[in-house]
């Protein structure tokens, strides 16, 4: 299945917008993704290995947090997993939390 990588995280996937994995659960898909692109790990998970609160994960058009089995949800090859980051830009000056 395809995992959609948002622009801010493409720096850690060699600029790839989608990464294909073969996995039968959401968790397994994420594990494959971060094995292939280890730098992504700290952006997606906190030190306890839990998904960071500001990262949203969608299986097709559903928020994984609201699926009954959450990250344990079964997946098929035709599913799409999307990582939705919070972006704050408004086309003003680049005020990315003062880290310019």
């Amino acid at each position: 299945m395809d995992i959609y990588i948002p622009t801010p995280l493409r720096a850690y996937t060699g600029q790839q917008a989608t990464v294909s994995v073969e996995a039968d659960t959401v968790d397994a898909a994420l594990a494959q993704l971060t094995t292939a692109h280890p730098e992504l790990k700290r952006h997606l998970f906190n030190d306890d290995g839990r998904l960071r609160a500001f990262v949203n994960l969608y299986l097709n058009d559903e928020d994984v947090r609201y699926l009954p089995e959450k990250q344990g949800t079964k997946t098929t090859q035709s599913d799409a997993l999307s990582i939705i980051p919070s972006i704050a830009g408004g086309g003003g000056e680049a005020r990315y939390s003062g880290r310019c």
Partner: protein
Amino acid sequence: MSSLAEATALPELTTDDLQRYARHLILPEVGLEGQRKLKAARVLCVGTGGLGAPLALYLAAAGIGTLGLVDFDTVDLSNLQRQIIHATPDVGRLKVDSAANKLLALNPALHVVRHNTMLTSANALEIFRDYDVIADGTDNFQTRYLVNDACVLLGKPNAYGSIFRFEGQCTVFAAEDGPCYRCLYPEPPPPGLVPSCAEGGVLGILPGLVGVLQATEVIKLTLGIGAPLIGRLLLIDALSTRFRELKLRKNPDCPVCGTHPTVTELIDYNQFCGVAGAEESVREAAVKGGALPQQNGVNQIPVQELKRRREAGENPFVLDVREPWEYQIANLGGHLIPQGELAARTGELPRDQTIVVQCKSGGRSQNAAELLQARGFRVENLAGGITGWSNEIDPSVPKY
């Protein structure tokens, strides 16, 4: 209010209005009554930048009666690549004045309210109170959370748009029974994981696309027609020209709009987003010519000190940690190692002298200086970076 009483309370259309809005009036979904609703509407545009520019122009053209504009900034030449409400002769003017000027030229009957101020926890509720719909076109996480919370507390819908490089998001937050920004993003990303300005940039037309989507939602909410983007997040990818839609759910445990809210008044959003006023204090100290406070144990030097050392022939070693394309635009003659390559290339750096680390405005170089200091190098961070150098020392160095 009954619909009859509501209809009589709406403002009448003038002869000019009937001609100006003719293409609306012949749409059954708008019609005379809809146009009168637009005329009665009061909409607040927070920000008159990339998103606010097309948003405000289209709302003014469509016949929204009162438009509030919140901005504290002045027009800069680098804004004009996307902020189409401002023009070349406006460079240096207050954005609210420049924008009001264009909006009134487009529609002289429009009532424009200028809020030339930074939106803060102290003024947001008072400003928002007078409006029916809020359109969030701001550009940082602190103000995003502030706008959201103020909308939820006052029960005003928020036509939300945000952009990053080639990607945009649009939805309506804080509508009755709909989710809010915190339902989707309970916490902001920590500053260290927010993309730096080297990874920033935005395709100029993208805010046009997203701002017009926001304007469309404002019009629909005002008219009460169609299916607003409530509970739906529209994702726009300009590079692949793909639009996708995701379901947004109202989080019953949401701290601000949930069943047992813990946020019942506006808070300190700088603190919430982990951006203390540290950068401001650096700027203030530099202006006063005083010593700069250390940041995370790294000494900070003002641009004036680098100039003094160079003029005194001290030949300081300057390490530039920006990207090669930035170096091409402007540089201070420093040794270039992009931040991402630094850990692998420390062999190029001297251990027998202090290294002055520099980037665009001091954020990336701070990270780099912390890394080098931990590896035993003697380092200082150039506060304000090359932008500070251009502002304070040599205006011929281009800003970007």
